[in-house]
C-alpha cells in the first residue's frame, strides 16, 4: 500500500510548503537514512524531509494526515533498536535542523530546546552557569534530545540522577491531528493526567516533539572514581549488591567482563588489571566531607567481597583513564569481530551472578562469543553478541541467542529493554513480557493519539497476530500462548 498518492505528487505537495533543498527524493540522498544504529535492518523511505521551522512540520503533518502517509521522525539516528528505521510507504522526518537552544533559565535551572539539539550541547550551554543536563547516554555527543525523549534514554549516571523521564519538565508536542499539546512546565507538576510520563519513551508513536524543557543540575561538589578487579565475575556481582545495600548510591557503577577487558586493552590500553575476570568502576560524588567517608566505605566493601585489587583515582586524569576503557568498550569489541549485536535487558541486581552464568551457557550452546559490559548498579545488562554477518545463518543465530537472553531477563523479574527501546528489534520479546490485554491497551492508547496509525507505525508494540505467530514457535511456561486467537 503506497497510499492514495504517487511519490512524485507527494514530493510536489511538500515542495509547496518547504524550501527546495528540504525535500530529498533521490536514491543517494535517501541512502543515509536507510537505517539507524541497528544496521541489520534497512529500509529506504519514499522521501526524506528536513524542516527547519515548526510551521513546516505542521504543514508536513497536515499533508501526511490527508494522504495517510506514515511519518518516522528521526534525530541523529543513533537508536540501537531500529526506532528510526524508515517505513517503506512513508516519509522520514529529519528534525536535525531544529537545533536551537531557546533559553537557559539559570534561576529556575531549566533549558528549553528544540528537538534536534544534541544531548551534550545542552550541558555545554549550561556549563558557564555551573549547571548540566544529567542523562548521559553513551551516544551523547551525537544523539538528540528528541530521540532521548522518544526512547526515555538512560546512561551511566542514571543510577543516581534518573532517566530522561526524571529530567524532562515540559514538552510541546504536535499531534498527528495538527494540535499542539503543552505538557508540564517549569513547575513540578501539572493539572490532569501525567501525559508527560506517557509521552516520554513512547518511541515517536504518540506525537512529535517540537520543544522540550529539561531540568538542569548543579555540578557535584567533587567526585572520586574507584576501580576494583575480581577473579570471578560472581564476586563482582555480589560486590555490586554489597555497595548498594550499605546505603551508598554511586553516581555510576559499571562492570566489564574478561572479554571486554582484553578488547579494551588492545584498543586503547586503559591499564586494567590483566588477570581480572571482571572489573567494577564505581564513581562517587558529593560534598568533600561526605565523599571521603563513602570512598572508604566502598573500598572496604570491595575488599570484603574479595576484590584482588582496588584502585582509587588520585586525580581527574587517572579517573578519566579508569573510564576510558568503559567508554571505548563498544568500538573495542567491534575490533574483535565483523559484527556485534548489543542487548539491553534489565534484571533485579540479586540475579546478576545467575544471569551472567546463564548467558555464558547460552553462548556455548549457540557457539557465539558474548561479552558483557554494563550498568551493574541498576541491573541494566548489555550483553554484546559477536558474530559475522557474512557467515550464512550467523545473524539469525545471534538474534536467537539475543532473544533467549531477553526472555531470561523477563523470567527473573526484569525487562527486555532498559534504555534502548523496543523499536523493531524486540517486538517478539514484547509478546513474552506482556499479555494480550496489556498489548491491546497499548494499541488503544496509540489509537487515542493517532487513529490512522501514521506515527512510526509497526514499532514498539507487536500486533496480537505477530505474537500468535511468534508463540507458535515459542511455548512459554509450558502453555500455548494466545489459545483464543484463530490460527491459519
Amino acid at each position, binding site marked *: 500500500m503506497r497510499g492514495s498518492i504517487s511519490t512524485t505528487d507527494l514530493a510536489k505537495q511538500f515542495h509547496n510548503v518547504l524550501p527546495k533543498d528540504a525535500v530529498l527524493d533521490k536514491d543517494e540522498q535517501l541512502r543515509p537514512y536507510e537505517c539507524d544504529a541497528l544496521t541489520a535492518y534497512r529500509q529506504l523511505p519514499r522521501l526524506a524531509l528536513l524542516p527547519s521551522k515548526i510551521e513546516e512540520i505542521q504543514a508536513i503533518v497536515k499533508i501526511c494526515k490527508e494522504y495517510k502517509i506514515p511519518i518516522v521522525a528521526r534525530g541523529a539516528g543513533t537508536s540501537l533498536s531500529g526506532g528510526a528505521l524508515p517505513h517503506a510507504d512513508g516519509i522520514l522526518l529529519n528534525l536535525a535542523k531544529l537545533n536551537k537552544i531557546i533559553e537557559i533559565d539559570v534561576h529556575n*535551572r531549566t533549558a528549553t530546546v528544540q528537538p534536534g539539539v544534541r544531548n551534550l550541547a545542552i550541558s555545554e550551554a549550561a556549563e558557564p552557569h555551573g549547571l548540566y543536563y544529567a542523562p548521559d547516554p553513551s551516544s551523547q555527543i551525537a544523539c538528540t534530545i528528541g530521540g532521548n525523549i522518544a526512547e526515555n534514554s538512560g546512561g551511566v549516571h542514571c543510577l543516581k540522577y534518573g532517566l530522561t523521564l526524571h529530567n524532562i519538565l515540559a514538552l510541546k508536542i504536535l499531534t498527528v491531528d495538527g494540535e499542539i499539546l503543552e505538557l508540564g512546565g517549569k513547575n513540578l507538576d501539572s*493539572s490532569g493526567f501525567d501525559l508527560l510520563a*506517557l509521552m516520554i519513551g513512547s518511541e515517536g508513536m504518540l506525537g512529535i516533539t517540537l520543544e522540550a524543557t529539561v531540568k538542569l543540575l548543579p555540578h557535584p*561538589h567533587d567526585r572520586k572514581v574507584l576501580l576494583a578487579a575480581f577473579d570471578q565475575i560472581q564476586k563482582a556481582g555480589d560486590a555490586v549488591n554489597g555497595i548498594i545495600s550499605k546505603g551508598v548510591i554511586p553516581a555510576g557503577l559499571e562492570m566489564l567482563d574478561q572479554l571486554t577487558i582484553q578488547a579494551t586493552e588492545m584498543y586503547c590500553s586503559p591499564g586494567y588489571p590483566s588477570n581480572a575476570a571482571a572489573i567494577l568502576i564505581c564513581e562517587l560524588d558529593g*560534598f568533600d566531607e561526605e565523599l571521603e567517608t563513602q570512598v572508604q566505605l566502598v573500598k572496604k566493601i570491595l575488599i570484603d567481597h574479595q576484590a584482588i585489587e582496588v584502585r582509587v583515582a588520585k586525580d581527574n586524569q587517572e579517573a578519566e583513564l579508569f573510564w576510558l576503557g568503559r567508554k571505548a568498550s563498544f568500538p573495542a569489541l567491534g575490533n574483535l569481530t565483523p559484527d556485534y549485536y548489543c542487548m539491553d535487558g534489565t534484571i533485579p541486581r540479586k540475579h546478576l551472578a545467575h544471569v551472567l552464568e546463564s548467558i555464558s551457557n547460552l553462548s556455548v550452546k549457540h557457539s557465539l562469543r558474548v561479552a558483557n559490559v554494563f550498568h551493574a548498579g*541498576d541491573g541494566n545488562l548489555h550483553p554484546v553478541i559477536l558474530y559475522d554477518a557474512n557467515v550464512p545463518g550467523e545473524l539469525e543465530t545471534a538474534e536467537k541467542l539475543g532473544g533467549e537472553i531477553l526472555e531470561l531477563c523477563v523470567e527473573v523479574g526484569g*525487562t527486555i529493554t532498559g534504555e534502548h527501546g523496543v523499536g523493531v528489534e*524486540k517486538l517478539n520479546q514484547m509478546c513474552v513480557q506482556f499479555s494480550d490485554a496489556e498489548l491491546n491497551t497499548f494499541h488503544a492508547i496509540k489509537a*487515542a493519539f493517532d487513529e490512522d496509525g501514521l506515527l512510526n507505525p509497526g514499532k514498539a508494540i507487536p500486533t496480537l497476530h505477530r505474537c500468535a505467530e511468534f508463540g507458535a514457535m515459542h511455548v512459554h511456561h509450558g502453555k500455548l500462548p494466545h489459545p483464543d486467537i484463530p490460527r491459519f
Partner: protein
Amino acid sequence: MSDYRDEITSKLEDAFQQKKALQIKAGSTKQFYGRDIYAEELALTDHTGIIEYEPSELYITARSGTPLREIEQAIAEQHQILPCEPPYFGANATLGGTVACGLAGPRRVNAGSVRDCILGTEILNGKGELLRFGGKVMKNVAGYDVSRLICGALGTLGVLMSVSLRLLPKPACEQTIVLTLDSNAAINKMNLWTNTPMPISATFYDGHDLYIRLSSSLSAIEACKKEIGGESIDEKDIFWTNIKEQTHNFFISDKPLWRISVPPNTETLNISGENAIEWNGALRWHKSDADENSIRTEAERVGGHATLFKGNTTDQVFHPLSKPSMKLHKKLKQVLDPVGILNPGKMFAEL
C-alpha cells in the same frame, strides 16, 4: 496480609456489566482531595500486605490497601525511606491512595515525585481486566509508561492492585536551620542555594521565617550551615511532619486553601491572604477568599496552575485543561474505563 483481588475483580466485572459507577476507597484520609462524588464504594481496605521487599534491590511491592505506616515502618528498619516523603492526612493512609493522589511531601524538591519513584503497577481496568505495567527495576522502557500515567489520576483510569516503589537509603544525618527573610528574598535565596550542590532536602517559608533542611553526612551539613547562616532548630522531625501533614499553624484555617504550582524562582504571587512556600518556591499555599478566576489567572500568568486543595468544593477543583488536552484525556479514560465507572467526575466533571 490478605489478597482480595478476586473479590474486587468480580465486583468490578459486575459494575462493568451494569454500568454502575464506583467510588474507590481505601484509607479515606484524602477524600477531601478532588471533586465530591457519590457512588457505591469499592473498598480496597482489606487488600493488604507487603508482597516483596528487597532492601538490597531498593524496592518494595505491596498491595494497594496496605497502610502507608506499615510500609514506612518496614523500610525504616532497613534504614530506607520513600523518596517522595508522601503525606498521610490521617492514620489510615494507604499505598493505593498515595499513588492515586500522587501527592509528595517536602523531600520532593530533591528526591522526586510519587510518580518518579514508581517502578511498576498492577491495575484492574474498568472492565475488571488485570494489567501489569512497568516492573521492579528502575530502567525499563518496554511499552508505554502506563504505570506512571496512573499515578495522580485519582483512580479514574484503573483500580490499583499493587505497586512497586523505588526506595532510597535514609540520609546519615538531617538538620534544619532557620533564617528570617522577606518573601521575595526567601524565594531568591532558595534558588541561589539550589544552584549549588548543597544537599538541601526541604524548604518552607511561613511568611516570616525560612526553614531549610539539609540531608547528608554530619560534616557536609556543618560545612553548608556555615555557608547559609541562620540558626539550627531542634525538633526537626516534628517540624517537617507538621508541614507535610499540614498540622503546622499556617494550615489551620477556615479559609479555602489553594495549592499553586509555579516555576520555583517566581516572585511572590499577587493573591490576597496569607501564603506559605515549599519546594524552593515551586509550591505556593494560599489561604484566600479571592475569587477562583483571579487565582487561576494569576497562576497562569507565571506559567503555573492552581488547585483548590481544601475548601468549599466548587465544580472545578483542578486547573481547567486546554481543549486538545481534554480531548485526549477523554480518549484515554475511554481506553482504560470504557463505560466510565471508575471514580467518575473525581478529577474533572467530564472524566
